[in-house]
Protein backbone atom coordinates (compact mmCIF):
# COMPACT_ATOMS: atom_id res chain seq x y z
CA UNK A 1 0.00 0.00 0.00
CA UNK A 2 1.10 3.54 -0.68
CA UNK A 3 -0.15 6.12 1.79
CA UNK A 4 -0.07 9.84 2.43
CA UNK A 5 0.42 10.72 6.10
CA UNK A 6 -0.48 14.03 7.68
CA UNK A 7 1.45 13.93 10.93
CA UNK A 8 1.39 16.52 13.70
CA UNK A 9 4.87 17.91 14.37
CA UNK A 10 5.47 20.02 17.46
CA UNK A 11 8.85 20.77 19.06
CA UNK A 12 7.57 21.13 22.65
CA UNK A 13 4.63 22.17 24.80
CA UNK A 14 5.32 25.89 24.33
CA UNK A 15 5.59 26.05 20.56
CA UNK A 16 2.59 25.72 18.31
CA UNK A 17 2.82 22.75 16.01
CA UNK A 18 1.58 22.04 12.51
CA UNK A 19 0.89 19.14 10.18
CA UNK A 20 3.65 17.77 7.97
CA UNK A 21 2.81 15.59 4.97
CA UNK A 22 4.82 12.46 4.18
CA UNK A 23 4.52 9.67 1.63
CA UNK A 24 5.17 6.06 2.61
CA UNK A 25 5.37 3.26 0.04
CA UNK A 26 5.01 -0.52 0.01
CA UNK A 27 3.28 -0.77 3.37
CA UNK A 28 2.10 -4.30 4.10
CA UNK A 29 -1.54 -4.64 5.20
CA UNK A 30 -0.27 -7.02 7.90
CA UNK A 31 1.78 -4.30 9.59
CA UNK A 32 0.54 -2.68 12.75
CA UNK A 33 0.05 1.07 12.66
CA UNK A 34 3.18 1.52 14.80
CA UNK A 35 5.23 -0.60 12.40
CA UNK A 36 4.06 1.66 9.61
CA UNK A 37 5.20 4.64 11.74
CA UNK A 38 8.56 2.85 12.17
CA UNK A 39 8.85 2.65 8.38
CA UNK A 40 8.16 6.37 8.18
CA UNK A 41 10.80 7.09 10.82
CA UNK A 42 13.42 4.91 9.06
CA UNK A 43 12.68 6.88 5.94
CA UNK A 44 12.98 10.24 7.72
CA UNK A 45 16.27 9.21 9.37
CA UNK A 46 17.73 8.06 6.05
CA UNK A 47 16.75 11.43 4.58
CA UNK A 48 18.54 13.15 7.43
CA UNK A 49 15.39 14.69 8.89
CA UNK A 50 14.18 14.26 12.45
CA UNK A 51 11.99 11.22 13.14
CA UNK A 52 8.45 11.54 14.50
CA UNK A 53 8.34 11.14 18.28
CA UNK A 54 5.59 8.85 19.54
CA UNK A 55 5.02 6.81 22.69
CA UNK A 56 5.07 3.01 22.55
CA UNK A 57 6.18 0.22 24.81
CA UNK A 58 4.65 -3.26 24.91
CA UNK A 59 3.17 -3.33 21.39
CA UNK A 60 0.62 -5.90 22.54
CA UNK A 61 -2.22 -3.70 23.79
CA UNK A 62 -1.59 -3.71 27.53
CA UNK A 63 0.72 -0.80 28.33
CA UNK A 64 -1.53 1.98 27.09
CA UNK A 65 1.31 4.12 25.75
CA UNK A 66 0.57 4.36 22.02
CA UNK A 67 -1.63 7.43 22.13
CA UNK A 68 -2.47 8.44 18.57
CA UNK A 69 -5.55 10.17 17.23
CA UNK A 70 -5.94 8.68 13.76
CA UNK A 71 -8.38 10.00 11.17
CA UNK A 72 -10.42 11.77 13.84
CA UNK A 73 -10.66 8.82 16.24
CA UNK A 74 -8.66 7.67 19.25
CA UNK A 75 -6.52 4.68 18.19
CA UNK A 76 -8.04 4.92 14.71
CA UNK A 77 -11.14 3.41 13.11
CA UNK A 78 -10.99 -0.06 14.72
CA UNK A 79 -12.81 -0.83 18.01
CA UNK A 80 -11.44 -2.34 21.20
CA UNK A 81 -7.81 -1.88 20.18
CA UNK A 82 -4.82 0.30 20.93
CA UNK A 83 -2.74 1.81 18.11
CA UNK A 84 -0.27 -1.09 18.17
CA UNK A 85 -3.19 -3.50 17.61
CA UNK A 86 -4.55 -1.48 14.71
CA UNK A 87 -3.57 -3.08 11.43
CA UNK A 88 -2.92 -1.40 8.12
CA UNK A 89 -5.55 -3.63 6.49
CA UNK A 90 -8.08 -1.24 8.01
CA UNK A 91 -6.89 1.31 5.43
CA UNK A 92 -6.92 1.36 1.66
CA UNK A 93 -4.13 1.93 -0.83
CA UNK A 94 -3.88 5.63 -1.62
CA UNK A 95 -5.51 6.76 1.65
CA UNK A 96 -4.52 9.97 3.38
CA UNK A 97 -4.21 9.32 7.12
CA UNK A 98 -4.22 12.11 9.71
CA UNK A 99 -2.20 11.38 12.86
CA UNK A 100 -2.44 13.70 15.86
CA UNK A 101 -1.56 13.57 19.56
CA UNK A 102 -4.23 13.36 22.28
CA UNK A 103 -5.51 16.90 22.71
CA UNK A 104 -6.40 18.04 26.21
CA UNK A 105 -5.23 20.81 28.51
CA UNK A 106 -4.39 18.11 31.07
CA UNK A 107 -2.30 16.18 28.48
CA UNK A 108 0.29 18.73 27.27
CA UNK A 109 2.22 17.73 24.17
CA UNK A 110 5.80 16.75 24.99
CA UNK A 111 6.84 16.48 21.36
CA UNK A 112 5.06 15.52 18.12
CA UNK A 113 2.63 12.72 19.03
CA UNK A 114 3.85 12.21 22.58
CA UNK A 115 1.82 13.72 25.42
CA UNK A 116 2.41 13.99 29.15
CA UNK A 117 -0.26 11.94 30.93
CA UNK A 118 1.10 12.37 34.45
CA UNK A 119 -2.19 14.04 35.38
CA UNK A 120 -3.56 10.47 35.46
CA UNK A 121 -0.79 9.48 37.86
CA UNK A 122 -1.63 12.37 40.18
CA UNK A 123 -5.29 11.29 40.20
CA UNK A 124 -4.20 7.78 41.23
CA UNK A 125 -1.90 9.26 43.89
CA UNK A 126 -4.88 11.20 45.26
CA UNK A 127 -6.78 8.03 46.16
CA UNK A 128 -6.47 5.17 43.71
CA UNK A 129 -5.09 2.72 46.25
CA UNK A 130 -5.87 0.98 49.54
CA UNK A 131 -3.76 1.91 52.56
CA UNK A 132 -2.95 -1.63 53.63
CA UNK A 133 0.48 -3.02 54.12
CA UNK A 134 0.57 -5.92 51.70
CA UNK A 135 3.92 -7.26 52.88
CA UNK A 136 4.01 -10.31 55.12
CA UNK A 137 1.12 -12.38 56.40
CA UNK A 138 -1.56 -11.97 53.78
CA UNK A 139 -4.92 -13.62 54.36
CA UNK A 140 -5.90 -16.23 51.81
CA UNK A 141 -7.58 -14.59 48.80
CA UNK A 142 -10.55 -16.93 49.11
CA UNK A 143 -11.10 -16.14 52.78
CA UNK A 144 -13.18 -13.07 51.89
CA UNK A 145 -16.20 -14.18 49.86
CA UNK A 146 -17.05 -11.79 47.02
CA UNK A 147 -20.10 -12.14 44.86
CA UNK A 148 -19.18 -13.31 41.36
CA UNK A 149 -20.98 -10.39 39.71
CA UNK A 150 -19.06 -7.83 41.81
CA UNK A 151 -15.77 -9.61 41.29
CA UNK A 152 -16.28 -9.59 37.52
CA UNK A 153 -17.36 -5.93 37.44
CA UNK A 154 -14.35 -4.94 39.58
CA UNK A 155 -12.05 -6.90 37.30
CA UNK A 156 -13.56 -5.31 34.19
CA UNK A 157 -12.98 -1.85 35.70
CA UNK A 158 -9.43 -2.83 36.64
CA UNK A 159 -8.58 -3.71 33.04
CA UNK A 160 -8.23 0.04 32.38
CA UNK A 161 -4.71 0.61 31.07
CA UNK A 162 -4.79 4.38 31.58
CA UNK A 163 -4.17 5.06 27.89
CA UNK A 164 -6.23 8.25 27.86
CA UNK A 165 -8.34 7.40 24.81
CA UNK A 166 -11.45 8.34 26.82
CA UNK A 167 -10.09 11.85 27.40
CA UNK A 168 -8.84 12.14 23.83
CA UNK A 169 -12.14 11.18 22.26
CA UNK A 170 -14.42 13.04 24.68
CA UNK A 171 -15.64 16.29 23.17
CA UNK A 172 -15.04 17.85 26.61
CA UNK A 173 -11.70 16.13 27.28
CA UNK A 174 -13.28 14.63 30.40
CA UNK A 175 -11.46 11.96 32.40
CA UNK A 176 -14.62 10.52 33.93
CA UNK A 177 -14.27 7.04 32.42
CA UNK A 178 -10.69 6.63 33.66
CA UNK A 179 -11.38 7.99 37.14
CA UNK A 180 -14.63 6.05 37.50
CA UNK A 181 -12.96 2.80 36.46
CA UNK A 182 -10.32 3.33 39.13
CA UNK A 183 -12.95 4.27 41.74
CA UNK A 184 -15.12 1.29 40.77
CA UNK A 185 -12.43 -1.36 41.00
CA UNK A 186 -12.15 -0.54 44.71
CA UNK A 187 -15.77 0.44 45.41
CA UNK A 188 -16.98 -3.00 44.33
CA UNK A 189 -14.68 -4.92 46.65
CA UNK A 190 -14.71 -5.18 50.47
CA UNK A 191 -11.07 -4.04 50.69
CA UNK A 192 -12.03 -0.74 49.09
CA UNK A 193 -14.89 0.07 51.43
CA UNK A 194 -12.85 1.50 54.32
CA UNK A 195 -11.56 4.50 52.37
CA UNK A 196 -14.36 4.68 49.79
CA UNK A 197 -15.63 8.16 50.67
CA UNK A 198 -12.21 9.82 50.90
CA UNK A 199 -11.05 8.05 47.76
CA UNK A 200 -13.83 9.28 45.48
CA UNK A 201 -13.71 12.80 46.94
CA UNK A 202 -9.95 13.13 46.55
CA UNK A 203 -9.80 11.59 43.09
CA UNK A 204 -12.62 13.78 41.75
CA UNK A 205 -10.99 16.79 43.38
CA UNK A 206 -7.68 16.02 41.65
CA UNK A 207 -9.47 15.37 38.34
CA UNK A 208 -11.01 18.85 38.56
CA UNK A 209 -7.68 20.45 39.51
CA UNK A 210 -5.96 18.92 36.48
CA UNK A 211 -8.31 20.80 34.16
CA UNK A 212 -10.24 17.93 32.57
CA UNK A 213 -13.69 18.77 31.21
CA UNK A 214 -17.07 17.65 32.52
CA UNK A 215 -19.08 14.60 31.49
CA UNK A 216 -21.94 15.12 29.02
CA UNK A 217 -22.73 11.38 28.95
CA UNK A 218 -22.21 11.15 25.19
CA UNK A 219 -20.83 7.64 25.67
CA UNK A 220 -18.00 8.22 23.16
CA UNK A 221 -15.42 7.07 25.74
CA UNK A 222 -16.80 3.55 26.14
CA UNK A 223 -16.94 3.15 22.36
CA UNK A 224 -13.29 4.16 21.94
CA UNK A 225 -11.93 2.46 25.09
CA UNK A 226 -9.57 -0.33 23.98
CA UNK A 227 -10.64 -2.34 27.00
CA UNK A 228 -14.37 -1.77 26.52
CA UNK A 229 -14.86 -0.20 29.94
CA UNK A 230 -18.52 0.68 30.45
CA UNK A 231 -19.94 4.07 31.37
CA UNK A 232 -21.83 2.15 34.07
CA UNK A 233 -18.65 2.90 36.02
CA UNK A 234 -19.32 6.63 35.60
CA UNK A 235 -22.82 6.15 37.03
CA UNK A 236 -21.28 4.24 39.94
CA UNK A 237 -18.80 7.04 40.61
CA UNK A 238 -21.65 9.58 40.46
CA UNK A 239 -23.43 7.54 43.14
CA UNK A 240 -20.29 7.11 45.23
CA UNK A 241 -19.48 10.81 45.11
CA UNK A 242 -23.01 11.86 46.02
CA UNK A 243 -23.03 9.39 48.90
CA UNK A 244 -19.62 10.61 50.08
CA UNK A 245 -20.76 14.25 49.90
CA UNK A 246 -24.05 13.73 51.70
CA UNK A 247 -23.45 11.20 54.42
CA UNK A 248 -19.79 10.89 55.32
Amino acid at each position, binding site marked *: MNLTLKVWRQKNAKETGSFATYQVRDISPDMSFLEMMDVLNEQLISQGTESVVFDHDCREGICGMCSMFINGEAHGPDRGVTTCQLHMRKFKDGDTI*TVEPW*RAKAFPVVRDLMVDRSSFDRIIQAGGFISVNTMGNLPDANATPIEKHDADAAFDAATCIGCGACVATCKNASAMLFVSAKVSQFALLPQGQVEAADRVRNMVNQMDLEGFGNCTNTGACEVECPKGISIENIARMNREYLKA*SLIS
Partner: protein
Amino acid sequence: MTLKRGLFGSSLARKYWMALTGLFLISFLVIHLVGNLTIVIGTADDFNAYAAFMTSFPPIKIISYLLYASILLHAVDGIVLARQNRAARPVGYGEYRGSANAGWASRNMALLGIFTLLFLLVHMKSFWFEMHFGSLPLDANGNKDLFGITVAAFEQVWYSAFYVVAMVSLGFHLWHGVESAFQTMGWTHPTYTPVVQIAGRTLAVVLCGAFAMIPLYVLISPNI
Protein backbone atom coordinates in the same frame (compact mmCIF):
# COMPACT_ATOMS: atom_id res chain seq x y z
CA MET B 1 -16.22 22.34 53.50
CA THR B 2 -16.48 18.81 52.13
CA LEU B 3 -20.23 19.07 51.91
CA LYS B 4 -19.99 22.47 50.24
CA ARG B 5 -17.59 21.24 47.57
CA GLY B 6 -19.46 17.97 47.22
CA LEU B 7 -22.76 19.70 46.55
CA PHE B 8 -21.72 22.96 44.92
CA GLY B 9 -18.08 23.29 43.91
CA SER B 10 -17.03 20.15 42.05
CA SER B 11 -17.60 19.14 38.44
CA LEU B 12 -19.88 16.32 39.61
CA ALA B 13 -21.91 18.68 41.80
CA ARG B 14 -22.52 20.98 38.84
CA LYS B 15 -23.77 18.00 36.89
CA TYR B 16 -26.11 16.91 39.71
CA TRP B 17 -27.73 20.33 39.62
CA MET B 18 -28.05 20.18 35.84
CA ALA B 19 -29.74 16.78 36.11
CA LEU B 20 -32.10 17.69 38.95
CA THR B 21 -33.18 21.05 37.54
CA GLY B 22 -33.54 19.50 34.07
CA LEU B 23 -35.82 16.74 35.34
CA PHE B 24 -37.86 19.27 37.33
CA LEU B 25 -38.27 21.45 34.24
CA ILE B 26 -39.73 18.47 32.38
CA SER B 27 -42.57 18.32 34.90
CA PHE B 28 -43.30 21.93 34.05
CA LEU B 29 -43.35 21.13 30.32
CA VAL B 30 -45.93 18.40 30.90
CA ILE B 31 -48.25 20.72 32.85
CA HIS B 32 -47.72 23.47 30.29
CA LEU B 33 -48.65 21.11 27.46
CA VAL B 34 -51.83 19.97 29.22
CA GLY B 35 -52.90 23.63 29.38
CA ASN B 36 -51.97 24.29 25.76
CA LEU B 37 -54.00 21.32 24.57
CA THR B 38 -57.15 23.23 25.58
CA ILE B 39 -56.45 25.33 22.46
CA VAL B 40 -57.03 22.20 20.38
CA ILE B 41 -59.64 20.30 22.35
CA GLY B 42 -61.27 23.06 24.41
CA THR B 43 -62.55 26.57 23.95
CA ALA B 44 -60.92 30.00 24.24
CA ASP B 45 -62.53 30.36 27.66
CA ASP B 46 -61.06 27.03 28.83
CA PHE B 47 -57.60 28.22 27.87
CA ASN B 48 -58.06 31.57 29.60
CA ALA B 49 -59.46 29.88 32.72
CA TYR B 50 -56.41 27.57 32.78
CA ALA B 51 -54.06 30.57 32.43
CA ALA B 52 -55.87 32.44 35.20
CA PHE B 53 -55.66 29.40 37.47
CA MET B 54 -51.94 28.97 36.83
CA THR B 55 -51.20 32.61 37.70
CA SER B 56 -53.40 32.87 40.80
CA PHE B 57 -53.52 29.52 42.62
CA PRO B 58 -51.08 29.97 45.58
CA PRO B 59 -49.33 26.54 45.50
CA ILE B 60 -48.73 26.95 41.76
CA LYS B 61 -47.35 30.45 42.38
CA ILE B 62 -44.87 29.04 44.90
CA ILE B 63 -43.82 26.30 42.47
CA SER B 64 -43.45 28.92 39.74
CA TYR B 65 -40.72 30.68 41.74
CA LEU B 66 -38.96 27.33 42.09
CA LEU B 67 -39.35 27.00 38.34
CA TYR B 68 -37.79 30.41 37.58
CA ALA B 69 -34.89 29.53 39.90
CA SER B 70 -34.46 26.18 38.15
CA ILE B 71 -34.40 27.73 34.69
CA LEU B 72 -31.81 30.23 35.85
CA LEU B 73 -29.68 27.61 37.58
CA HIS B 74 -29.90 25.19 34.64
CA ALA B 75 -28.90 27.94 32.21
CA VAL B 76 -26.08 29.49 34.25
CA ASP B 77 -24.70 26.12 35.34
CA GLY B 78 -24.88 24.88 31.75
CA ILE B 79 -22.94 27.88 30.47
CA VAL B 80 -20.27 27.46 33.18
CA LEU B 81 -19.93 23.75 32.31
CA ALA B 82 -19.73 24.47 28.58
CA ARG B 83 -17.03 27.08 29.14
CA GLN B 84 -15.01 24.67 31.30
CA ASN B 85 -15.40 22.02 28.61
CA ARG B 86 -14.05 24.33 25.94
CA ALA B 87 -11.14 25.32 28.16
CA ALA B 88 -10.30 21.64 28.71
CA ARG B 89 -9.17 21.37 25.08
CA PRO B 90 -7.42 24.63 24.16
CA VAL B 91 -5.96 23.21 20.91
CA GLY B 92 -8.57 21.36 18.88
CA TYR B 93 -8.13 18.43 16.54
CA GLY B 94 -7.41 18.89 12.84
CA GLU B 95 -9.78 16.03 12.20
CA TYR B 96 -12.40 14.92 14.72
CA ARG B 97 -15.07 12.32 13.89
CA GLY B 98 -17.54 12.96 16.69
CA SER B 99 -20.31 11.10 14.87
CA ALA B 100 -18.28 7.88 14.94
CA ASN B 101 -18.97 7.23 18.59
CA ALA B 102 -21.70 9.54 19.93
CA GLY B 103 -25.15 10.78 18.94
CA TRP B 104 -25.71 14.25 17.52
CA ALA B 105 -27.99 15.44 20.32
CA SER B 106 -25.52 14.40 23.04
CA ARG B 107 -22.72 16.34 21.33
CA ASN B 108 -24.77 19.52 20.97
CA MET B 109 -26.51 19.89 24.32
CA ALA B 110 -25.07 23.35 25.01
CA LEU B 111 -26.03 24.67 21.57
CA LEU B 112 -29.53 23.21 21.84
CA GLY B 113 -29.81 24.58 25.37
CA ILE B 114 -28.79 28.10 24.36
CA PHE B 115 -31.29 28.07 21.51
CA THR B 116 -33.99 26.88 23.91
CA LEU B 117 -33.07 29.72 26.28
CA LEU B 118 -33.36 32.29 23.48
CA PHE B 119 -36.73 30.84 22.56
CA LEU B 120 -37.78 31.00 26.20
CA LEU B 121 -36.95 34.72 26.40
CA VAL B 122 -39.01 35.48 23.28
CA HIS B 123 -41.78 33.17 24.48
CA MET B 124 -41.96 34.76 27.93
CA LYS B 125 -42.03 38.24 26.42
CA SER B 126 -44.90 37.21 24.12
CA PHE B 127 -47.12 35.52 26.68
CA TRP B 128 -45.85 35.42 30.25
CA PHE B 129 -45.01 39.13 30.36
CA GLU B 130 -48.33 40.09 28.75
CA MET B 131 -50.25 37.85 31.14
CA HIS B 132 -48.52 39.25 34.24
CA PHE B 133 -47.86 42.86 33.34
CA GLY B 134 -49.65 43.63 30.06
CA SER B 135 -53.16 45.06 29.77
CA LEU B 136 -55.13 42.27 28.15
CA PRO B 137 -58.86 42.51 27.42
CA LEU B 138 -61.11 40.25 29.51
CA ASP B 139 -63.15 37.32 28.19
CA ALA B 140 -66.80 36.50 29.02
CA ASN B 141 -65.77 34.95 32.37
CA GLY B 142 -63.68 37.94 33.40
CA ASN B 143 -60.37 36.17 32.74
CA LYS B 144 -57.54 37.84 30.83
CA ASP B 145 -57.82 36.92 27.16
CA LEU B 146 -54.48 35.15 26.72
CA PHE B 147 -56.08 33.05 24.00
CA GLY B 148 -56.47 36.13 21.80
CA ILE B 149 -52.78 37.06 21.78
CA THR B 150 -51.75 33.40 21.50
CA VAL B 151 -53.78 32.93 18.33
CA ALA B 152 -52.62 36.31 16.99
CA ALA B 153 -49.00 35.28 17.52
CA PHE B 154 -49.39 31.83 15.96
CA GLU B 155 -51.17 33.23 12.93
CA GLN B 156 -47.91 34.95 12.02
CA VAL B 157 -46.13 32.30 9.98
CA TRP B 158 -42.62 33.40 11.02
CA TYR B 159 -43.57 33.19 14.70
CA SER B 160 -45.03 29.72 14.29
CA ALA B 161 -42.00 28.62 12.28
CA PHE B 162 -39.67 29.86 15.04
CA TYR B 163 -41.83 28.06 17.58
CA VAL B 164 -41.71 24.76 15.68
CA VAL B 165 -37.93 24.97 15.18
CA ALA B 166 -37.51 25.70 18.89
CA MET B 167 -39.61 22.66 19.78
CA VAL B 168 -37.51 20.44 17.50
CA SER B 169 -34.43 21.82 19.23
CA LEU B 170 -35.94 21.18 22.65
CA GLY B 171 -36.89 17.70 21.49
CA PHE B 172 -33.27 16.89 20.66
CA HIS B 173 -32.20 18.39 24.00
CA LEU B 174 -34.59 16.08 25.86
CA TRP B 175 -33.78 13.11 23.61
CA HIS B 176 -30.38 12.98 25.31
CA GLY B 177 -31.23 14.96 28.43
CA VAL B 178 -33.51 12.50 30.20
CA GLU B 179 -31.22 9.47 30.07
CA SER B 180 -28.22 11.72 30.72
CA ALA B 181 -29.82 13.07 33.91
CA PHE B 182 -30.40 9.54 35.22
CA GLN B 183 -26.80 8.60 34.40
CA THR B 184 -25.49 11.74 36.12
CA MET B 185 -27.46 11.00 39.28
CA GLY B 186 -26.16 7.45 39.16
CA TRP B 187 -29.68 6.05 38.81
CA THR B 188 -28.74 3.20 36.54
CA HIS B 189 -29.78 -0.42 36.54
CA PRO B 190 -29.30 -3.24 34.03
CA THR B 191 -33.06 -3.69 33.62
CA TYR B 192 -34.44 -0.20 34.10
CA THR B 193 -31.86 1.94 32.29
CA PRO B 194 -32.97 0.77 28.80
CA VAL B 195 -36.56 1.54 29.88
CA VAL B 196 -35.49 5.04 30.99
CA GLN B 197 -33.76 5.56 27.64
CA ILE B 198 -36.82 4.57 25.61
CA ALA B 199 -39.18 6.48 27.91
CA GLY B 200 -36.98 9.60 27.74
CA ARG B 201 -36.82 9.55 23.96
CA THR B 202 -40.55 8.85 23.67
CA LEU B 203 -41.25 11.72 26.05
CA ALA B 204 -39.04 14.04 23.98
CA VAL B 205 -40.83 13.20 20.74
CA VAL B 206 -44.38 13.19 22.13
CA LEU B 207 -43.96 16.31 24.28
CA CYS B 208 -42.21 18.48 21.71
CA GLY B 209 -44.28 17.07 18.85
CA ALA B 210 -47.48 18.01 20.68
CA PHE B 211 -46.18 21.50 21.47
CA ALA B 212 -45.14 22.05 17.84
CA MET B 213 -48.49 20.80 16.58
CA ILE B 214 -50.43 23.60 18.29
CA PRO B 215 -49.24 26.60 16.22
CA LEU B 216 -49.67 24.48 13.09
CA TYR B 217 -53.21 23.70 14.22
CA VAL B 218 -53.90 27.41 14.75
CA LEU B 219 -52.49 28.19 11.30
CA ILE B 220 -54.58 25.66 9.41
CA SER B 221 -57.74 25.45 11.53
CA PRO B 222 -60.69 27.30 9.95
CA ASN B 223 -62.40 27.60 13.36
CA ILE B 224 -59.77 29.87 14.92
